[in-house]
């Protein structure tokens, strides 16, 4: 039962709240009516003929340095196409790769251009009807002149060009802190055993030998899968991920022995499975860890976060296994024009501009590894980036990462198993049997 005084209090409270609501709504109404001009372009369609066009471009966040290049391309393109406004949507990479992109594509503001990985994922998008055929632009136009034929690997479906090549991302190499290595008198390991020995020296010096942030499972997933492919051979690896042999096949279980070794020697940060990839990189940037297995994009991150860090990389050292021992785990990425876009021509024009030597050059400076030919004949390229690109071209074999090259459910199951083995909570037999059970036995 309420007292009279609290009722009076309630009334005053109501007055205040009503006042706030009315004020806010008035503000909003004013803002809405003033912004109607530009929001009107959202709805109209098919107006490539001079009417206002909003071109939406979506991707996982490529890091500040590369975002700056995209912004520069936007400025340049909008200057020569005054009717076009480019809108970027840079999502968290993990979000983008998982629920972000499908959600964007099915939503009301579907992007006209979106980032995607070549291979299985591109094929899925194609099957879903989100991939425009750009063969004509590649064959006849300016766009095609910026790429060699080899750049289109994994980007041609049913004889059609369906992707503008972006970067060739090496998804894992071993980055190392040059200063720590030289202080401890270590040289770059050339074999797996040398890497383990070096790690033990580093550990004795109270520095984390190898740091990785695996909360989202793909960082160790890529690294451990590369190790696995070296151990069991690329062919068995491919069969396993295509589920022609089960994940818990004896040779796979045996190959996981290398991950067990990483766990038993304790050379990977204890926090690996608790922190995300940025926090893992931060351990390396802050000099708390000597090595960091992650992809080529680390160069771009370091430009912003640790400009003074003296670091370099070596490929996963050779091991005694069935696979090609100088293989590189890499994936080509690119940009897809949405088949459902109303502005396919504008999208192609924009990607043409972005692939031109001017912006390719800027991408290289920002730590990217572009597939466009404009990238390679530059002398101001970061030496690490250049040598990464050369390493990829000379590799005895290219290994496709499970999450981008194969069925995502198989990749997820394998990644969970690898994380468990690295974390020491399961043996390879148990972890892989559980993983296979998730996929229906």
């Amino acid at each position, binding site marked *: 039962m309420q007292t009279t005084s609290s009722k009076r209090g309630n009334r005053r409270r109501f007055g205040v709240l009503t006042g706030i609501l009315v004020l806010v709504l008035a503000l909003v109404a004013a803002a809405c009516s003033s912004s109607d001009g530009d929001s009107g372009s959202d709805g109209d369609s098919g107006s490539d003929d001079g009417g206002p066009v909003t071109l939406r471009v979506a991707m996982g966040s490529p890091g500040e340095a590369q975002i700056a290049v995209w912004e520069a391309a936007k400025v340049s393109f909008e200057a020569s196409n005054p009717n076009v406004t480019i809108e970027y949507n840079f999502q968290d990479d993990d979000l983008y790769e*998982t*629920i972000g992109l*499908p*959600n964007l594509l*099915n939503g009301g503001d579907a992007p006209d251009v979106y980032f995607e990985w070549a291979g299985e994922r591109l094929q899925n998008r194609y099957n*879903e009807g989100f991939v425009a055929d750009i063969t004509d632009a590649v064959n006849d136009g300016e766009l095609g002149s910026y790429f060699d034929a080899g750049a289109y690997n994994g980007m041609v479906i049913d004889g059609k060009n369906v992707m503008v090549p972006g970067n060739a991302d090496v998804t894992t190499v071993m980055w190392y802190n040059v200063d720590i290595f030289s202080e401890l008198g270590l040289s770059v390991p050339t074999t797996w055993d040398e890497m383990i020995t070096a790690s033990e020296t580093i550990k004795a010096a109270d520095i984390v030998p190898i740091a990785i942030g695996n*909360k*989202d*499972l793909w960082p160790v997933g890529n690294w451990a899968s590369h190790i696995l492919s070296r151990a069991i051979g690329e062919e068995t690896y491919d069969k396993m991920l295509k589920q022609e042999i089960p994940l818990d096949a004896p040779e796979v279980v045996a190959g996981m022995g290398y991950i067990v070794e990483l766990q038993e020697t304790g050379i990977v*940060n*204890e*926090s*690996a*499975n*608790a*922190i995300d990839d940025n*926090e893992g990189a*931060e*351990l390396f940037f*802050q000099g*708390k860890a000597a090595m960091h297995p992650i992809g080529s994009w680390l160069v771009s991150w370091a430009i912003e976060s640790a400009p003074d860090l003296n670091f370099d990389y070596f490929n996963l050292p050779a091991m005694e296994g069935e696979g090609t021992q100088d293989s590189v785990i890499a994936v080509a990425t690119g940009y897809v024009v949405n088949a459902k876009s109303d502005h396919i021509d504008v999208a192609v024009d924009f990607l043409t501009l972005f692939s031109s030597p001017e912006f390719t050059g800027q991408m290289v400076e920002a730590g990217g590894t572009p597939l466009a030919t404009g990238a390679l004949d530059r002398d101001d390229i970061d030496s690490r980036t250049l040598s990464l690109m050369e390493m990829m071209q000379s590799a005895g074999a290219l290994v496709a990462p499970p999450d981008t090259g194969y069925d*995502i*459910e198989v990749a997820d199951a394998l990644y*969970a198993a690898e*994380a*468990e083995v690295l*974390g020491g*909570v*399961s043996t390879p037999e148990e972890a892989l049997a*559980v993983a296979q*059970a*998730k996929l229906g036995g």
Partner: protein
Amino acid sequence: MRAHRWFTPYLLVVPALALFTFAVLGPVMATGVFSFYEWDGFGVFTPVGFDNYVRAISDPIFRASFVHVAIYIALTIVLEVGAGLFLAGMVTSRPKGTGFFRVAFFIPVMLPLVVVAVVWGFVYNPDFGLINGALEAIGLGSLTNVWLGDTRTALIAVSIVSGWVFAGFFMAIFYAAINQIPSEISEAARIDGASEIQTFWKVKVPMIRNVIEIAILLAVTGGFQSFDLFFVLTNGGPYGATEIPTTYLVKVVFRNQNVGYGSAMAMVMTATVLAMGAVYMWVRKRADVEGGTA
């Protein structure tokens, strides 16, 4: 009372009903329909009967997610409702000087989730974090732990954050309820020589029993629906130790595009929540009957 015109009540209800049916009730029924099909969100519907339900009931991750959320709810009853009751007891034990504390304890309720996640991510961070840093500083380095990465502590760690956020909410409810107890009653207890703590447990708590029951119901049904904290702090990890029904559901539907299967899981969860509500009503009714005869 009859309305002046027979159709007035219907006109009054229609706006709310239309919106509610369109955005909630209709989708509930559609989710029920989806659950009998295999559907990826845009292709063809393939009827599969009860297969999705059979799969859900035998899915080890889905089953484990119910265990996790049950543990989480049990912990939050202590860390949210229990802590809220404790805080309310503290701030009502004195007539003055508690305004600052009441405000401070409620602030986390309104914080944007990302703030909570980033701040607590750093508190728990194994390498740079405040807890491990503090433990090292006071010479207890051996107790440091990978709080969110250890299957034994991850769920507890998330529950503690949950408690930090929501204890203030329950404190506010209990605070108001305790203040409605006529002051003569606690005065009487004090004159009888009861200490502040005794008065709280023997007099005040029994008098707000109904409120505590409602708070527990809110914690149980709210806890079952939680998503945000888990999504940003662990997203199900490590090794699936904090996978709860909602995080798993979002993965199945939006990552694997398995809408039919996800819908069946959603229906199982709905049935669970409705059953919990029914149990509460039943317990309430029995308590009322007993209360009436006593």
